């Protein structure tokens, strides 16, 4: 999923998947994250960061 917006206070990020569907993602395990970062998300939690999109 791609990070659209971050909420640093709550440790959450608004992310969109490849279809554009948006959801709130827990980012505590991969912080810091920035808009544009691509994350592997499982059950609402980002587990790892992927390389930037080509």
């Amino acid at each position, binding site marked *: 999923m791609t990070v659209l917006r971050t909420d640093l206070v709550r440790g959450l990020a608004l992310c969109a998947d*490849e279809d554009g569907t948006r*959801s*709130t993602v*827990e980012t*505590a*395990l*991969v912080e810091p994250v920035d808009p544009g970062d691509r994350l*592997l998300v*499982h*059950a*609402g*939690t980002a*587990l*790892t960061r*992927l*390389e930037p*999109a*080509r």
Partner: protein
Amino acid sequence: MKYVDEFRDAELGRAVAGEILSLVEPGRHYKLMEVCGGHTHSIYKYGIDDLLPANVELVHGPGCPVCVIPMGRVDDGIAVAHRDGVIFTCFGDMMRVPGSNGSLLDAKAAGADIRMVYSPLDALRIAKQNPDREVVFFAIGFETTAPSTALTLKRARAERLQNFSVMCSHVTIVPPLRALLESPDLRLDGFIGPGHVSTVVGARPFEFIPADYGRPVVIAGFEPLDILQAIAMILRQLAEDRCEVENQYRRVVPYEGNLRALEVMAEVFELRPHFEWRGLGFISHSGLKLSEAYGDLDAEARFSVPGVRVADPKACQCGEVLKGVIKPWECKVFGTACTPERPIGTCMVSSEGACAAYYNFGRFARERQVV
């Protein structure tokens, strides 16, 4: 799309299939286990089985989170869901798993307030929206999902939520692998290691497999080329008489895993002395429960669940499928009494279950030419 298109390239796939063919020793039978249900799904979806020589057999392992939940555990969940004032939350797949007297979906139809969620965070949000109700999250899954539950519990604690608790049925991947390796009725030549579990735990926990049992492990991604390449890497190890843990999924899996995730899991969970697995029986130190520090958020303590052990239906052979002893289509009720629409066993419920994957994608193409 990056990470997808290049891993579905048909020409490259044929090249790796050719490499696999060149690596097999004629007359030798290779039995490789894909541990993860996600791999099982991809194998049938993309017809990977059909690209392999007939003497390379893929055995489906116990890595489907829903499939390994025993019936008694479902009954426990239903008992909690029927309590007055409870909102019971769980993942969608879990709702269809049969207990001894119906599924959570049946219990919902009978009036229990059971809601499907995509993440434990959704359950926490429901708890905040319903302060006068008790919200229980039925936590299942391996180390991929457990960090999400752990972080949610930490949030619940930080926000002092009193009406949220977790019925923890998380399991760990290493103990069942050890149990399978000790099993006398299953001889395996190598393992396709779980991709996303390894994102959390890393590659190190699998080092006992080559060290103690002399079997190679290759951690793999979920696209068709990932799986084909992992099979080629295992066969190459066998051909070169090597035996180690290799990481095909380096674009996602760091060798050491996610240390923050391991830390938060260690804080929130502790190992149960025993946990019952569907088809595999009780396995020591294979299940997680909430640690003492988070004991007040443990739904099992809050609601005192029945904890009854229930035997699987006699016709159901999920246990043998999960151990790789029989193929899905060899089960007596496969595709007749047991279908994805009306499953008898767990392996037919989840899309990661070997029976559902085979039913949906592979059942018309069983015969293969012997190479």
